[in-house]
């Protein structure tokens, strides 16, 4: 039996999905920049590992933004420059409450998770292999950042900020740290933002 799936969205659907993904990238990048300006994100009270992750993310997300914008115009649309409205309000509420490195990691983790899930969904649903590969490239990057944040989050949440160092003392790291960064065998998409969310 053949399961027929409608897998070829029109160009307009591609544009909407790409604009939404871009809006999440825009939001994530601006949020990381805001976090970097905080004492616990990029200042004197920041853990060096967390500070490095924040700094690297700003740069990587700039690349993602450029690529997704180019893909959007290539698909016949106008590049998105506004942040995702749904998660924008989440960030607006959370940023003033950031006090600790764990807060930094927690907020970043929220955004990276939805960004990665959205790009993974796009990597399956966009209409051409080239667009799907673009989404997957940056979905993998977001997933990678998510994994790093999960590892750090696990140590911070268990009161072991002393182990969030580079290089770590492997003999003192809990065994669970070896797997906490990849909880799912197949990357989930249940939290993927709908294509229209940030396309306006």
């Amino acid at each position, binding site marked *: 039996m*053949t*399961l*027929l*799936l*409608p*897998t070829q*969205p*029109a160009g307009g*659907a591609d544009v*909407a999905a790409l604009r939404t993904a871009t809006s999440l990238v825009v939001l994530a990048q601006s949020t990381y920049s805001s976090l970097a300006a905080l004492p616990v994100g990029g200042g004197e009270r920041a853990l060096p*590992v967390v500070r*490095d*992750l924040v*700094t*690297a993310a700003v740069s990587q997300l700039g690349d993602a933004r450029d690529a997704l914008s180019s893909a959007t115009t290539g698909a016949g649309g106008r590049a998105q420059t506004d942040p995702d409205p749904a998660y924008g309000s989440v960030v607006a509420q959370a940023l003033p409450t950031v006090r600790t490195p764990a807060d930094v990691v927690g907020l970043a983790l929220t955004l990276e998770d939805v960004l*990665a899930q959205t790009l*993974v*969904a796009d*990597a*399956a*649903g966009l209409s051409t*292999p*080239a667009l*799907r*590969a673009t*989404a*997957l490239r940056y*979905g*993998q*990057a*977001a*997933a*990678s*950042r*998510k*994994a*790093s944040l999960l*590892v*750090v989050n696990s140590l911070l949440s268990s009161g072991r900020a002393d182990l969030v160092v*580079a*290089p*770590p003392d*492997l*003999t003192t*790291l*809990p*065994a*669970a*740290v*070896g*797997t906490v*960064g*990849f909880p*799912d*065998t*197949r*990357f989930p*998409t249940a939290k*993927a933002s709908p*294509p229209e969310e940030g396309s306006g």
Partner: protein
Amino acid sequence: MSTTGRPSRRLVLGAGAAGLLGVGALAACSDAPPPAPAATPSAAATPTTSTAPRPAYVGDQRGVALCAALSALAASLYSGAVLAANDGRLGQVPAVVTSFLSGAGAQHTEHAAAWNALLTAAGRPAVTGSPLSVETERRATLGRAAAPTDLLSFAVDVEASVGATVLARAGEFTDPGAAALAATVGPVAAMHGATVAFLLGRPAGIAPGPAGAALGLDALTT
């Protein structure tokens, strides 16, 4: 169900082994005889049958088979790494290292099964073992590990190669099931890679070596 015409994300991603890999690809490698060539006097006088072996995989199937083989190789290499960690020749291997190798290896095993399920659903044989041109070299590299961190450095290239290979194939897949599987498997390899990078003290990422490059379709030896 959506009425917008855009595919449901969950529907597409749920295609899995029930994807369309078999439809076009099976047509390309059907057991049905090829169309008869235009008759010539000599051909008509001397009936022949084709003796060319049917290729095991064609079209997207070949990319899927490559990913299956590479996932299986990664799982096998990590299994070997755990054995090496436990036999004492690398000294005391921290539990976090063996935990990573076992956990990531288990996921690679499941990925190989998922890739193979696409093939078998299309009526093609599953990939057996890891028929790749790089297998011998990769096993030799693992055999040269002399310290726990060597296992982690080795894993950097393993994960980079898996991620890059899946990404490269994703840029070619036209089959929805293959595209959906690539979309959900590639990021997991990236997460493995990020974990290794943290363990090696480079949480923002490590540039892989040449062995971390994407494998081309010509690396598949079956």
